[in-house]
């Protein structure tokens, strides 16, 4: 694994995205900040509706909704992206920052051949000739592990299986050697055996193309196996971030504990009951005033319902973007015993 450069490639500061709707303002993303360095894989986890996709799509202004409001700052190689017009963003989209969307079944235009769609992107950003673009596309298809790439080039999306389609989408995303690859749940729709293939592929390609990867998922297992660093989101906010090891070995936030605990283990003794998180995620239009997780938190105390916790590193001082940090009011020393209490009480 190449040593991640410390110079951030992409830096997001206090990103806020809200939608105006009949029920009032829905804050889908509420003050998200993170950094991504070249060659790094940053995993973003969170339950459905926690704002993962909205965060990523707002980076490149891909939310096509007249009722959206985006605030904050997104700097790519030092250039501010928020506020750019669609025309100005065109050169960044697909060329510098590429996307792989969640559902490979619907991510490709059904009426065009797979190869055509790759060539289209190549020719939008380079001055390759048709023939050269075609050769390059076939090369890319081979690189993502498509058997007989020249044949697959001529296929329509529906003629490919889910895994092959996802490969084609990845090949398309990689076609311009982007600096950042944003993969929004790239394996959720796939079977485990195929998921394993795709995750392996992403790893391999990071090495080969050197792209930084922003990997969104709601599967803790996928993050654990793929990401260098992890960011956990809950109700549009980041509740915890840190390196993969920090996060999985010593999670600080009670929500992270719950996430990790509610997955049944694949080996070892089977618990009789799972340590589930009680209750349901809150509606974004009516967030509780304090910590959004407080109503479900077994370790919550009075302050949690009033004061909104900020992301805080373990060590005092200004928050380094790469430090292990959590947005929780629990004092650092109470965390381990509280975690013990929560999980065991549930298992009773």
């Amino acid at each position, binding site marked *: 694994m190449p040593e991640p450069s410390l110079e951030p490639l992409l830096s997001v500061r206090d990103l806020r995205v809200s939608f105006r709707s009949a029920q009032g303002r829905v804050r889908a993303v509420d003050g998200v900040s993170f950094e991504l360095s070249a060659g790094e894989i940053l995993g973003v986890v969170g339950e459905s509706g926690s704002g993962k996709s909205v965060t990523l799509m707002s980076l490149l202004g891909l939310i096509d909704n007249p009722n959206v409001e985006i605030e904050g700052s997104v700097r790519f190689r030092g250039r501010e992206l928020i506020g750019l017009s669609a025309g100005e963003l065109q050169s960044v989209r697909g060329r510098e920052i590429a996307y792989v969307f969640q559902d490979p079944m619907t991510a490709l235009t059904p009426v*065009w051949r797979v190869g055509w769609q790759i060539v289209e992107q190549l020719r939008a950003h380079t001055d390759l000739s048709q023939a050269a673009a075609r050769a390059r596309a076939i090369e890319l298809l081979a690189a993502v592990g498509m058997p007989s790439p020249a044949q697959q080039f001529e296929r*329509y999306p529906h003629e490919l299986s889910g895994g092959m389609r996802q490969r084609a989408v990845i090949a398309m995303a990689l076609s311009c050697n982007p600096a950042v690859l944003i993969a929004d749940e790239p394996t959720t729709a796939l079977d485990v055996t195929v998921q394993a293939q795709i995750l392996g592929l992403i790893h391999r390609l990071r090495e080969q193309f050197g792209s930084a990867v922003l990997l969104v998922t709601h599967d803790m297992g996928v993050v654990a196996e793929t990401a260098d660093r992890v960011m956990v989101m809950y109700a549009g906010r980041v509740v915890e971030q840190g390196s993969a090891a920090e996060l999985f070995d010593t999670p600080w936030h009670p929500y992270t504990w719950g996430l990790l605990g509610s997955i049944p283990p694949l080996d070892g003794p089977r618990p009789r009951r799972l340590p589930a998180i009680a209750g349901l995620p809150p509606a974004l239009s009516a967030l509780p005033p304090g910590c959004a997780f407080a109503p479900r938190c077994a370790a919550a105390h009075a302050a949690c319902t009033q004061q909104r916790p900020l992301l805080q590193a373990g060590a005092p001082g200004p928050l380094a973007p790469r430090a292990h940090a959590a947005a929780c009011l629990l004092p650092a020393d109470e965390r381990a015993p509280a975690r013990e209490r929560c999980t065991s009480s549930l298992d009773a």
Partner: protein
Amino acid sequence: MTLAILRRLGQMLFVMAGISILTFAIFFATPGADPSARIAGRNASPETLAAVRHDFGFDQPMAVQYGLLMKRLFITGELTSFVNRGEQVLPEIAAAMPVTLSLVGGAALLWLLGSVLMGLVAAAHRGRWPDKLLMVLGLVGISMPVYWLGSVVNLVTQSRWHDTWLFSWVPPLGYVPFSQSPLGWLLCLVFPCLTLSVLYMGLYGRVLRAALIEAGQEDYIRTARAKGLSPRRVLLAHALRTSLISVVTLFGLDFGALVGGGALLTEVVFGLPGIGKLTYDSLQTLDLPVIMATVMYASFFVVAANALVDVAYAFIDPRVRDA
């Protein structure tokens, strides 16, 4: 595959047979439909009436009459009119076809171009005034009775403002064959085609706009935008291309129905001697052979258009091709 085609053909035959029987039944249920008296003439004696009835086979059982009619229509092709005795029906239809084709073809060209433009502009300006204006116009187009629109057009172009520079070029109503005068042909079709296309332009424009907007929410459009394509390319190459599928199927069915005589009202109002007018006239005089022939002809086009649309659908939408 051949089996499938055969099945499809079988289905078509079934439907057409059903229609012919229905037509036949309707005709004989019509009061005053028995053409003997009309053929025999006023004040005919009972003997004459009987002779005519026998000559034309109206004294035969219904089934035999039906069989005879079908035989004359499809096998010997020598079906003749009851009203204009001796007039062969099939050549009549053949003569009416170019008129209808000219009218419908011209209108189709207009409405396709118009509606694609309308749909694109409206979808691109979704929610803003050009969208609203176009959609209201489309709605008005859909809501105008075509015969009324045609009459108003006639009033304006043939009478009220006929003497002004604006409409002085408008030829009198009726049809001029292309072979007789290409320019005359073109001019005499301008207003009929425009009138006919208004309804469909509104309809298709609205359908296309809805399809474009629906496509705009599809994942693949998001992918296309994420690829860094220009908005225009996203709209034309991705959204429009997929949205056209719904329009093409609509178009097939409508075109089939219109060529089959569905443009009856337009033809009647503009005095174009096409299939629709032929049908209408024969219905007015209860001329069963002509009615039967035109109805068969029309239903053939409808049924064939349905089948063709299915095939065409598979051609334009690769998903359907080997589903």
